[in-house]
């Protein structure tokens, strides 16, 4: 039986990827951020997952405004790295897990989550930066990846509560997959940041800290945060944190926090990282 063993919440700031790609992680600006990533890499290497479900948003890379899927799952064998306007990141292409991905697609749709299914798509920094953060710079990614995209670019994104329920449905789907697989799930984006308008640069440390605390203390309370509250308190792009609820919903109710790291700034953003383990899988 497949089982979800752990969850990873991780910001996906493009500049973090650029810093790694250009070898800047030891500079005074970046060193404090990357120092805090080291325990996560050790932890994940020891967990040895077979597959990662990465919940992220596409940033006008695979999808434009021509077609805006609210929830999408990638079922391909392989996902190339997108050119987002400055050439593709120099990181390995992502290998998919079509058998589990198709099982997820079928299970989720029959469980009343109307997924869009992608047989071909490039993946952008929303997916590759969290992989870089948690795996470093390997010649090939150490596990298969199932991309799961959530629209947060065109308002409105799905609600936090809906995202949490999608996570619960993912859990049911993984639990019913007959092959023995160790699965981790990433919820990416956030934390507080605003990239646009006169209010660009907004950071809300107390909001972010409460959010991190409540991922274990009261995750259901977090699912009731409205989009306007996210935008007002955590910046217009802080609403990306709805994607963390997909990850959280896929874990046990009493999942435990094993590590967190929070750093300001990563470019315009408060970078957050949390590692969570399912007691049931230990």
């Amino acid at each position: 039986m497949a089982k979800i063993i752990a969850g990873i919440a991780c910001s996906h700031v493009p500049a973090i990827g650029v810093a790694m790609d250009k070898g800047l992680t030891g500079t005074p600006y970046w060193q404090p951020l990357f120092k805090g990533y080291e325990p996560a890499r050790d932890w994940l290497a020891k967990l040895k997952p077979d597959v990662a479900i990465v919940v992220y948003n596409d940033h006008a890379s695979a999808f434009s405004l021509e077609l805006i899927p609210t929830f999408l799952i990638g079922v391909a064998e392989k996902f190339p790295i997108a050119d987002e306007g400055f050439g593709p990141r120099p990181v390995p292409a992502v290998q998919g897990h079509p058998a589990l991905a198709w099982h997820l697609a079928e299970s989720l749709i029959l469980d009343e989550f109307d997924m869009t299914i992608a047989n071909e798509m490039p993946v952008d920094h929303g997916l590759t930066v969290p992989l870089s953060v948690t795996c470093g710079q390997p010649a090939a990614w150490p596990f298969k990846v199932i991309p799961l995209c959530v629209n947060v670019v065109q308002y409105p994104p799905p609600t936090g509560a809906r995202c949490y329920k999608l996570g619960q449905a993912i859990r049911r789907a993984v639990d019913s997959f007959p092959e023995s697989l160790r699965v981790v799930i990433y919820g990416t984006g956030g934390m507080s940041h605003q990239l646009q308008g006169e209010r660009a640069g907004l950071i809300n440390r107390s909001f972010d800290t409460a959010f991190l605390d409540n991922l274990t203390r009261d995750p259901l309370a977090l699912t009731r945060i409205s989009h306007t509250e996210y935008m007002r308190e955590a910046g217009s792009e802080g609403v990306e944190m709805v994607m963390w609820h997909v990850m959280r919903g896929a874990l046990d109710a009493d999942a435990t926090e094993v590590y967190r790291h929070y750093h300001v700034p990563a470019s315009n953003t408060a970078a957050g990282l949390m590692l969570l383990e399912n007691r049931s899988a230990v």
Partner: protein
Amino acid sequence: MTKDYDSIPGTYVYDAERGRVGYALNMFCMSLNKAENRTRFKSDEAAYLDTFPLSAEQRRTVLERDWLGMLKVGGNIYYTIKIAFCDGLTFQDVAGMMSGVPKETYAQMMLAGGRSPEGNRFKETGASAGAPKVAAAVAVKIAE
């Protein structure tokens, strides 16, 4: 139609209304994901823009790199940033320009912990609220 998020100062939510206005502008930006289109745009910006049905004002904001102006005519930051990438600018460069302060001032604000939400939550209180919590030297008040 009024929306509860309209009360947030200095923020342009890319909703249905902006989506209807900004589609062509953003799809022009999307075309810059292809290297050959970036080359075409850079070699003759006006001629390249002619191939997209932009309004005169949208066209002006692009040619003048009026980043804040683009948002006001339906630009979505994840799309308009692709023009900045063509120019060799970063997200932080553009964020500084949109908030109307010199690059160094913006960078210092971020290093000092970012723009505080204090006084920046509601348009009504934005101008009259107490000093933002960021250090006074880098505090950036929002002028609405």
